[in-house]
């Protein structure tokens, strides 16, 4: 490890320790039941939950592993279908400047809409809260990938496409060997942003629909006034988000290239 990284690590640990101590001091200064649970209480809850992550005692009492698993399942379904669609549409838009310019205004209008705003429409139309939540994830992960793919494909160097035309590559082969790899860095950057916004949106969506999922867990524990569980869940959500992003960061490094 370089000296620089040792310094960063020490500073990072120090900040964490100071924060936890301050938190404990603040929590300890308040009368029980009237303040914030301290780190020790949260730690005890975490220990308990991590010891039995997959228990299932009925609809309102499931282990944290099951809750996270349910959320990740929804995420996978909504995110993967959205990503596949966004990449396909993005490639088409990227290759056709005319279509790109024609469709772009609609994308610009829909992009800033919070995916949760679609929820009532989905609930009314498909009348299934579980599927509506997945559609919310779908909406939240669509736009960044779509915009980035279209941009990435549109800015592929003319030379690479010229080589593909000279070699008379068939359409599927051209897509797989030239267009997608050339635009891959931009596409993966879009996929990372999409993943981030999908993971943010799923918590809120699950709070609305209930049932299982880490978002509903947070809401349920709030109703139980079990704030240690809420704080623990916040940390778990953050950690899972980091892991998801780290996976895509690895993918991005593998697909990067220098000209």
């Amino acid at each position, binding site marked *: 490890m370089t000296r620089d990284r040792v310094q960063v690590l020490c500073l990072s640990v120090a900040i964490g320790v100071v924060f936890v101590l301050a938190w404990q001091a603040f929590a300890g200064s308040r009368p029980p039941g009237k303040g914030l649970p301290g780190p020790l209480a949260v730690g005890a809850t975490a220990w308990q939950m991590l010891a039995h992550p997959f228990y299932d005692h009925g609809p309102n009492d499931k282990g944290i592993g099951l809750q996270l698993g349910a959320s990740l399942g929804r995420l996978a379904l909504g995110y993967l279908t959205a990503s596949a669609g966004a990449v396909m549409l993005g490639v088409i838009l990227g290759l056709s400047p005319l279509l790109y310019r024609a469709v772009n205004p609609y994308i610009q209008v829909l992009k800033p809409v919070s995916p949760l705003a679609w929820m009532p429409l989905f609930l009314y139309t498909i009348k299934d809260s579980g599927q509506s939540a997945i559609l919310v994830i779908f909406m939240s992960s669509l736009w960044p990938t779509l915009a980035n793919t279209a941009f990435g494909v549109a800015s592929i160097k003319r*030379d*690479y496409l*010229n*080589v593909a*035309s*000279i*070699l*008379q*590559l068939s359409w599927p082969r051209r897509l797989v*060997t*030239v267009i997608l*790899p*050339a635009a*891959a860095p931009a596409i993966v950057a879009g996929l990372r942003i999409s993943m981030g916004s999908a993971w943010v949106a799923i918590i809120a969506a699950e709070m609305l629909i209930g049932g299982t999922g880490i978002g509903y867990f947070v809401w349920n524990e709030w109703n139980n006034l079990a704030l240690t569980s809420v704080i623990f869940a916040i940390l778990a959500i953050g950690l899972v988000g980091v892991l998801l992003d780290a996976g895509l960061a690895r993918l991005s490094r593998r*697909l990067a*290239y*220098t*000209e």
Partner: protein
Amino acid sequence: MAFLEIDHVTKHFPSHDGPGEVCVFREVAFSIAQGEFVTMVGHSGCGKSTLLNIIAGLERASGGGVVLEGREVTQPGIDRMVVFQNFSLMPWMTVFENIRLAVRAAYPSWDRRRIVAHVQRYVDMVGLAGAERKRPAALSGGMRQRVGLARAFSTAPKVLLLDEPFAQIDALTRGLIQDELIRMWTAGRNTVFMVTHDVDEAILLSDRIALMTRGPEARLAEIVDVDIPRPRVRAALVEDPDYLRLRAHILRFLVEGTRAAAGDGYGAPATAPLAATPR
């Protein structure tokens, strides 16, 4: 019928300032026989790379057309491989994969083993053995263009189009790669059309050299034969009187323009480009 016929090709571009069009070159007409190495020399802006792109099918002629073996060229095709000035290798592919992409496209019926063996043969031919798994970014300009040459030659194209292939390579390496080009061309006797502004390179490599006047509205001024016997050795050429005379003629043409060059015993007069065509 000529093997490759450049039939009175004219190219207009939309004008940068204001309406209207700019004529890059007008009525360029000549033909190339099978197995012949023809080079076009001219100043920047005479449209020689544009003409090469028209032959490649990457650009359309505004007038006239290009005919290869009796068929008009309208689209890019693997029978006309291009070696680009900027190499145009796929940066996400290794050396081997770049060449394999072309070999696969040229020989769709071949099985994996045969393709791999063919690619390896061309990798070895340009002296890149050991660098197969490197990506272009890890290679020098000279090595990249070796990949470009291997990619082009490996498909055995009917016509090889070289677009200032050595312009971005340092002078010392350039000589080595020119020698490699000569070796590969001698082995297969491909038909080659090259574009360059390096007069020595043109004389060393070509059977005939086409001279373009300055653009816009450039014209084919004349085509000179290079009668120096092959194999040509760079070191010996420097003192060859034919070489020196030819070199002086082309340089004088480039410096002084069309008219001054006429009348020193080379080529056809500028006003009759067609006269230089038959062979």
